[in-house]
């Protein structure tokens, strides 16, 4: 990536001389957070001639788009796939001249093994296996998220997924557990299909089924538009980086915001290093957990503050592995596995543009298993994941190496991946997430109405940019 001279100067100045800047920088708008939503909002404002200054806590751009470029094919530690209906993100990638590659067919090249209770269960033994707690009519189905989602889809009461936040949907804002019990699932069936490698939340008890009704309706639209899972060649992080290059204003890296103080004429954004930025308006794209550490004066409105404090974030840890040789040829099982261990779900990476060769394995550990890895710390977590893999697959012994690790919950600029909803929280807090507080406006995927993931970030940026343009 090439930084434009202005961006580069601002970034390196912050890196080299992070001494307090007591002189206030004046701008029309300060955008906090150089992830997809913040940068896209800045781009839209700059296009309208607004003077924008960006501040970012990290030493890099991209937020929850983070490509591990030290690994072959730059696999994603964060946002992974650009789906068919991601109109804004696909358009952006186009505008920025980026090449995308559809990974969906590659994902289907190897089958995933089921590993429960300490062993790989050959597929032909699964239907009659004692650990098979699938409902009677679905004994042969693969357990987990896809099966769970098929049941939700068949019983989705929302006619249009966008109606999830409407008052009439409030009756569905209850736990996944309650919903699944009504479908006749036993606690064992729920434990197997929902709690293992959990898609959202930490258990079926603490996730609202309404969010799934929304998500599954939305997912279907994505594939109906075009059944693709696109990635930017060179890594998805290239999108925010390119937006930053094209921005006329400065992007200040390593600026950790500690306080936001409003007065009658403007807003001061105060950073940990003592520097202060001032503008007429602020766009804050910070995810919820780090927002809890910011001192707001005056305080944010009570319901908004409660939403920021109480909405949970999804916990996902990723361990990247490489194999010194294709040990899976020796034991005849696929290298990808769906397990009930802290290793979680192992997927096969095929990241190269011009080849479908296996470039590595990625272990995704979610919910309580991510908490376990976090309690152990990065080093012990990676060692545990390798030992769990080797226990299940003796053929892998000594052939795996951990080459990358990411805990989103322990990333202090994220505090988790996407925002989650406990049962009952959707209608209590949803209206307060996107609302402005005085001169502070909010974007980020947690403030989106009609999308999830990267497209939600982009949607929220658009809404926020127009909101600010109206009042400048």
């Amino acid at each position, binding site marked *: 990536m090439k930084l434009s001279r202005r961006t580069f100067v601002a970034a390196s100045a912050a890196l080299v001389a992070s001494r307090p800047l007591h002189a206030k920088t004046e701008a029309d708008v300060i955008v906090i957070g150089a992830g997809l939503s913040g940068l896209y909002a800045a781009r839209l404002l700059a296009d309208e001639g607004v003077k924008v200054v960006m501040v970012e806590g990290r030493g890099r751009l991209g937020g929850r788009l983070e490509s591990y470029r030290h690994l072959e094919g730059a696999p994603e530690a964060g946002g992974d796939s650009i789906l068919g209906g991601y109109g804004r993100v696909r358009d952006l990638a186009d505008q920025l001249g980026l090449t995308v590659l559809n990974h969906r067919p590659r994902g289907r090249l190897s089958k995933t093994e089921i590993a429960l209770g300490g062993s790989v269960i050959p597929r032909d033994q699964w239907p009659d296996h004692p650990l098979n707690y699938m409902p009677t009519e679905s004994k042969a189905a693969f357990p987990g998220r896809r099966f769970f989602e098929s049941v939700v889809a068949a019983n989705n009461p929302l006619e249009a997924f966008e109606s999830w936040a409407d008052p009439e949907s409030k009756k569905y804002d209850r736990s996944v557990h309650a919903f699944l019990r009504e479908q006749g699932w036993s606690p064992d069936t729920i434990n197997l299909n929902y709690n293992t490698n959990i898609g959202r939340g930490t*258990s079926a008890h603490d996730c609202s089924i309404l969010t799934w009704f929304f998500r599954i309706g939305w997912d279907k639209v994505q594939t109906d538009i075009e059944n693709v899972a696109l990635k930017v060649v060179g890594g998805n992080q290239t999108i925010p980086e390119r937006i930053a290059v094209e921005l006329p204003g400065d992007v200040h890296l390593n600026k950790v915001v500690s306080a936001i103080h409003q007065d009658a004429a403007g807003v001061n954004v105060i950073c940990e290093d003592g520097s202060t930025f001032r503008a007429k308006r602020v766009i804050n794209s910070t995810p919820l957990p780090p927002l809890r*550490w910011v001192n707001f004066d005056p305080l944010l409105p009570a319901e908004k503050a409660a939403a920021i404090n109480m909405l949970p974030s999804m916990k996902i840890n990723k361990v990247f592995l490489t194999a010194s040789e294709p040990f899976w040829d020796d034991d005849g099982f696929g290298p990808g596995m769906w397990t009930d261990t802290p290793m979680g779900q192992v997927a096969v990476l095929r990241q190269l543009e011009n080849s479908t060769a296996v470039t590595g394995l990625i272990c995704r550990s979610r919910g309580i298993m991510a908490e376990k890895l976090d309690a152990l710390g990065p080093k012990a977590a990676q060692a545990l994941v390798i030992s769990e893999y080797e*226990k299940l697959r003796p053929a892998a012994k000594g052939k795996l190496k951990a080459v990358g690790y990411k805990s989103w919950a322990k990333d*202090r600029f994220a505090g988790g991946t996407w925002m989650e909803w406990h049962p009952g929280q959707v209608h209590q807090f949803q209206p307060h997430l996107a609302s402005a507080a005085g001169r502070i406006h909010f974007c980020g995927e947690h403030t989106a109405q009609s999308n999830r993931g990267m497209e939600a970030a982009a949607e929220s940026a658009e809404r926020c940019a127009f909101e600010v343009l109206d009042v400048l």
Partner: protein
Amino acid sequence: METDRRTALKLGSVAAAATLATGKAKAQANPDVIVIGAGLSGLYSAMLLAEAGATVQVIEGRDRLGGRLFSARNVEGNPEWGGDSILGGYGRMQDVSANVGIELVDHQSRRDLSPEAHKDPTNTELALQGKLIPRGDWPTHPLNKMPDGAKNRFPGRGFFQAVIGENNPLEAFEDWLDADSAQYDRSIYEVFKEIGWSDEAIDLNYNTNVQYGTSARDISSLMWFFTQAWFKLQGELDRVAFKAPGGNQSIPEAMAASLPGEVHLGKEVIGIRSEPGQAEVHCADGSVYKAKRVICSMPIPTMRWLKFDPLLPALKAQAIATVPVQKITKIILVPKKPFWEDDGYSPAMWTDTDCGEVRALREGEDANRITCLMAWGRGYLADKLDSYSDEEAMAQVIADYERIRPAAKGQLEAAGIKSWQSDPFAAGDWAVWSPGTVTTMVKALIDPADRIHFCGEHTATSNRGMEGAMESGERAAFEVLDLI
């Protein structure tokens, strides 16, 4: 020790195979009871069972005894990373300590001491938005958001507990679990609003250096009505704050030594299976323990990682999956010189910065000398400190302290950090009751399931802290004695 086919399938054939190689318990007969966890509650239940003639095997995941009693023995006076003070009403703690030959020392007078410059009973300076606010300036300070009539009060725990005390509807704190009390199982935020506090007053007094929960919204007022009255009783019984010489961890160590058998350390439990006639406890190293009954004293978050066969009853599983625990990260700072004599302020500070609440400890032979400072990060601040590396977190806390107190520049050395969340055998500190959970989840956590009985402070009904652990160990021991 052999494993049958079903167990191998459910809990891991590798584990079963590894069992053959170990076999510490192989030669001897199965005990009556396996106690999981060598903290206070587990050890006390084991002592009571052994006294009653039952055979007991205690297993512990860590390589040390004591659980959430953990003394910083590398620091002068052994300050506590975990359970700190044995209060007046801690009858079981005082009794058991005496029985295992530990002479407790009362530290209350040391806690009451102030540096010469300050005679205020809280011994603590106030620092908000990164600046120290001299006490004389506080009543009229722009950041003073105390409720009307309380402008001259020090914010935080002491103040809001007094207010809760004045508004406590429970006649006896033990009533908190009665059906009539369910009406109070709502957020403490609602209570504060009803008595006329502003959101700013709640934010200052409750959410800053939060003691239970992460904010006033996510904590049950019923839990506070119980806890406040219980705390008050402690002081009324006898105004003491006992500590064990050598650190409180000496107590569980002496308790373990008093047991007839040896505690097996390094036994991380991964699953518990109940079947007719016996229960099995499976460990990560492949060993399997069998007994008639199991007492599980593991903290709530660590139980989420266990495989239970059969699954625990629905409500119990829900309680374990959802009841939160307090987040606490502590940092010990050792002063090179008494820098507070230079600026005339107390070294103890109550702040809204990354150093959280800083207490001045006097743990040495000279009861008047401050031996170290302990910075407490709780709730969201603990989350923040946990997102740094240990070195970064300690540096950050020192930097924030020095920013408020230039006289401390270069005078503080970090002696260690303890994040209870980052401890895989605790994964947090005490259980926290969010609104609505007291009435629905406390009993569910206590109830036995098949052959498994549960203890630990999260299952106590009449006490908190160390005494809560002891109470629960006693209850679990009697529960099991009735059945074996």
